[in-house]
């Protein structure tokens, strides 16, 4: 008779993979399931930001902590993970976008994250291809980028080396008390269950406040040096906030390959993955507004992906009351890559009863939240 693992993790995206590693490192036996293969879902479609964000104090606390954890993790990951600490340059079109930035610098500093205001002349020195006439920028040098599916693969390999049983291509269709049901009709006993199935988590836990928030990405051919840091317009924050309506913002990443990865768009259209060419055009216009040379880069392809969004833009990390020993690790919206190691630590702390590295209560899945008002087509 097969052993029942201490913990069954459902979903081997970056969040599930990091959680499986953390649990295995804590000495627990782990079963890790993925419907397709590690990194195949939102992780495989993601940009791969390692970014500190401060919409709310809770978001700042978790992104700052998780970025620290990335710093520790990065040297041990293979070259293919393409981790580059290129920094984030938040581009301000208007002076008012920089109002209050001193407070943000102070808040970042309280979490050990360096940040500074950069005047336009220095922005142009660092990024000669950025358009002239900006009001300045907010520079966060410790941010970075990675190649998410390679990280998921490496972490799953690490979990396996620590004894985790990896079930790739096995879709979990339902969960029951101490049991999971697979697409092939079989049932497997489970100890604790961690649902890290991203946008598909509500299929396992009806009523979980997570909806797919679609995004488009465009990758260009190799054009090394065109852009050096991650370039995001301040308007991105407004784009990320308005949950109901479709929006775009300039978000350009330099990749290790010399390619540019261009985002971003946000829409709520269910799981319709088709390309919305009107929105895509607006997104590329936005990128070209800030970096006109984008127009001359050659485009290789575009694709869409789905972010697991919650009504209050904070992830769902912790115990869920519908079943005994059921844990949730999803709802990271566009920050799943950044937040994976921090999320893993909170889940491991919860399951093992060890002290949590930061206060987990803001992320408790059963917290009070506004209702999800969506325009799902």
């Amino acid at each position, binding site marked *: 008779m097969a052993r029942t693992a201490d913990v069954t993790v459902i979903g081997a995206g970056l969040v599930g993979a990091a959680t499986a590693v953390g649990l295995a490192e804590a000495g627990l036996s782990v079963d890790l399931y993925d419907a397709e293969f590690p990194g195949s879902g939102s992780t*495989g479609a993601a940009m791969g930001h390692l970014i500190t964000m401060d919409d709310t104090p809770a978001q700042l606390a978790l992104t700052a902590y998780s970025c620290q954890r990335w710093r520790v993790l990065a040297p041990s990951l293979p070259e293919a993970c393409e981790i580059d600490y290129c920094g984030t340059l938040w581009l301000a079109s208007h002076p008012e976008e920089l109002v209050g930035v001193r407070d943000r610098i102070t808040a970042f500093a309280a979490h050990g994250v360096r940040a500074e205001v950069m005047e336009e002349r220095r922005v142009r020195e660092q990024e000669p291809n950025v358009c002239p006439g900006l009001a300045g920028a907010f520079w966060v040098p410790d941010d970075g980028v990675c190649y998410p599916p390679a990280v998921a693969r490496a972490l799953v390999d690490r979990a396996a080396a620590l004894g985790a049983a990896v079930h790739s291509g096995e879709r979990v269709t339902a969960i029951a008390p101490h049991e999971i049901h697979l697409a092939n009709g079989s049932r497997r006993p489970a100890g604790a269950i961690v649902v890290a199935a991203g946008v598909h988590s509500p299929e396992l836990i009806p009523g979980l406040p997570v909806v797919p928030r679609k995004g488009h990405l465009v990758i*260009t051919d190799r054009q090394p040096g065109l852009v050096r840091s991650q370039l995001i317009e301040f308007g991105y924050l407004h784009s990320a906030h308005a949950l109901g309506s479709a929006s775009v913002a300039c978000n350009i990443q330099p990749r290790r390959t010399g390619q540019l990865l261009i985002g971003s768009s946000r829409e709520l259209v269910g799981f319709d993955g088709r390309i919305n*060419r*009107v929105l895509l055009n607006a997104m590329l216009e936005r990128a070209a507004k800030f970096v006109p040379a984008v127009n*001359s880069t050659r485009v290789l392809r575009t*694709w869409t992906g789905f972010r697991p969004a919650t009504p209050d833009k904070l992830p769902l990390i912790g115990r869920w009351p519908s079943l005994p020993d059921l844990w949730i690790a999803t709802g990271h919206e566009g920050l799943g890559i950044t937040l994976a190691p921090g999320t893993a630590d909170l889940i491991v702390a919860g399951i093992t009863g060890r002290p949590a590295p930061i206060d987990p209560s803001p992320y408790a899945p059963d917290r009070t939240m506004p209702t999800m008002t969506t325009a799902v087509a």
Partner: protein
Amino acid sequence: MRRVRHADVVVIGAGPAGLAAASAAAERGRSVLLVDQGLRPGGQIWRHRDEQALPSAARRLMARARNAGVKLVSGCRLVDAGSPNELVIDFRGRIDRHQTDAVIIATGARERFIPFPGWTLPGVTGIGGLQALLKGGLPVADTRIVLAGSGPLLLSVAAAVAQAGGRVQLVGEQAGAAALRRFAIRVLRDPAKLRQAISYRWACRSAPFRTDTWAVRAHGDGRLQSVEVSERGHLRSIRCDWLGIGSGLVPNTDLGQLLQCQVEHGAIAVDALQATSVAGVWAVGECTGVKGDEAATIEGEIAGRAAAGDAAGAGSTALQAARDSGRRFGRLLEETFAPRPEVLALATPDTILCRCEDVPMRSVDPGWTPRQAKLWARVGMGVCQGAVCGPSCTALFGWSANTVRPPLGNPSCGEWKSGLDSAD
């Protein structure tokens, strides 16, 4: 500013199938735009610099398209399509949006390459690739040439190279003698194909033709210098300047995939009137399965009539019988020239599989899915979008075709963007 134009029928690809389709539709009163990537019409098979040098069938078909009022645009390509009714076309750097009621896909085929050591060396080209370069003006007089691959293209290219003064050292056909005999018997029943085969063999009569023969390794320092071939079980090295390789042809399905057409066994699926699974979209010729120019012309005729609303004409008994015969020949081609196991085993762990991203064989697990190989090892992630390594992986690992993600080709972001904005 981008312009929005209209044509009743847009045909993509001006090879035999596309020319026939465009002509048939235009003769039935439709306005027809024929978009072709090449510098001149004719596709790969009728690639030319001087129209007078073409076979009479080609000249007749080109004259027919002209007389029917087909609007041919050369050096142009389809970049994107939001729907089959909205095509974004790059007219040599100017992007226009074309609205249309009917699309006929006639995008032809490309060569299938099975990786082997040294195949990325300059001087190693496709068999058809060498032919294309030759027709594009490459001088081959007094150069030494080895052709080693599979399929009828071998002989026709050997003939063309020999006529241009190239010294063909060897024509190696990987298929076995028995399989080739069965194929020859079928060709014997077709006077036109037989005449063609005889003329090709006559043109390259001084070159040895060997069955059960393939390239094992290409050698050279920065450029091809010699090739090691396995000739009926014996290895030998041949000094050469050009090595033409290729294991048959595979359909170009990318436009069909972009328009959401069903693809089966690597070809765009069509019904008896060449209609795809998507309303308003037809596909003709090699992109629906490789079967040669005569059959492609028949399919083009059928689809051109059907797209112009002449279903009765498209379904005519004579056309349908010719179509069926062409499809049978296509299946025979596929069986006869399928890559053999020894050829599929040539690559070493260091051999490059994906040429765009320099991915060696050792980075790939045959048990993966194509998407897994893409995300984990960058296979097919490069600028050719898996056009080269996709068919290699299908042959080597049994993987399904790559997904197609817009845009097609590699337009600049500015060009593509200008075709995306709203039509109003």
